[in-house]
């Protein structure tokens, strides 16, 4: 369900930006927009299958240092 909602939001964002970019003559931004939105979909799909989170990854990475400083 979440993936579908994100997909819908991405399509809406893309259409909206395409329209305003065409009006202002910025068609070449389409590629950047598509790449960014693909990252959005990729992030959602990954998170739905494996619950990786930014904080989790950062905590694992900095744990030894945190223990050293804060005991």
């Amino acid at each position, binding site marked *: 369900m979440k993936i579908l909602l994100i997909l819908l939001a991405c399509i809406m964002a893309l259409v909206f*930006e395409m329209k305003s970019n065409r009006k202002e003559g910025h068609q070449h931004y389409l590629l950047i927009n598509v790449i960014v939105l693909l990252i959005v979909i990729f*992030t959602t799909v990954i998170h739905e299958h494996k619950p990786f989170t930014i904080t989790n990854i*950062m905590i694992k990475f900095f744990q030894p240092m945190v223990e050293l400083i804060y005991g």
Partner: protein
Amino acid sequence: MKQIRLNTLQLSSIIFIQIAGTGLLIVPGTVVLIAGIDGWISIIISTLHALLLGMIVFFLYKYFPNDTLIGIFEKVTGKIIGKLLGVGFVIYCLVSLSTVIKQGCSITLNIFLPESKPVNFYIAYFLIVVYILKMGITVLARTNVLITIFLLISFLTIILTAIPLLEIPLKPMMAEGMKPILKGSLSPSSLMNQVILISMIFPLFPKEEKGNIKKVILYSLLLVGGLSTILSVMTIGILGLETKDQYFPIYTIAKLIEIDYFWRRLDVLIMFAWVGGVTLKISFWFYCTLLAIKQILNIESYQPIVLPMTLLIFTLAFYATNNSTELSYYLGRVYPLFSLLSYELLIPVLIFIIMLVRKGVSTR
């Protein structure tokens, strides 16, 4: 096209909101958790620390007044390393921004409106941020001035009316030595050192008031540091060591204030300060991220990528943590190390040293 310039008031309000937007409300709780009753001394140390970084930011501005941080990286370290540092800066901004949004939404949800659905806050913040960024930096700067004035009046009102509630002495001072105080200063330092973000808007600084920039940066930092210290002294003096159990101690104090029948429920001021501060903080962070991306990809304008990038950041924020315990542990212990060992201290200091060495070599 007319070159946009900020005035000194707008610049100082951006620095103020950038730090105080979330800092003033949560810092007293986090410092008391680590440094105990001496938490307020930790804030003084972190202010001194931020003043040092503020001086480095000023010197960077003095040497590169027309460049952003990404441009400075490229000029000081060369094209390739500069671009890599720029990409690192974007990643640092995305990580920080996603946790700031998560923090903003989860606190609004847990404390102010517990029966609402979290997705509502994400959508509300999303729409406001997109609107502000589409409007540009001038709108953001003007709103910053308005909210800064409101924040200052709110906090001064709360400080003055909470004085009769003070009853716990701040003693014994430094009973456990300097170690906990220094450890406690890391968390507020990670907030105060976010002053480095203003190096992304060096080209927008007022040119005719170039001599005042140092004063603007240092006075703004002193204002935030002073206000945070006073608020910490207040919270420790009223709540004592209970402060550490409160994620939002100022909110608790605001609820305790009661003068006759008419002067009560000041917590609404805190709610407004939090929502306004978080919104503007997210917007400015995001503006800096977009400027960095614009410069790295060498595109003319950031505006055509605002909407997809906002969607990306809000998706990252939505999936930033599994629960609020993980988030508070991350913000209190991990984020200070991450930020200070990257773009909030280590890299700016290194860049400054390299710049000085290169300037020294070239003058010789």
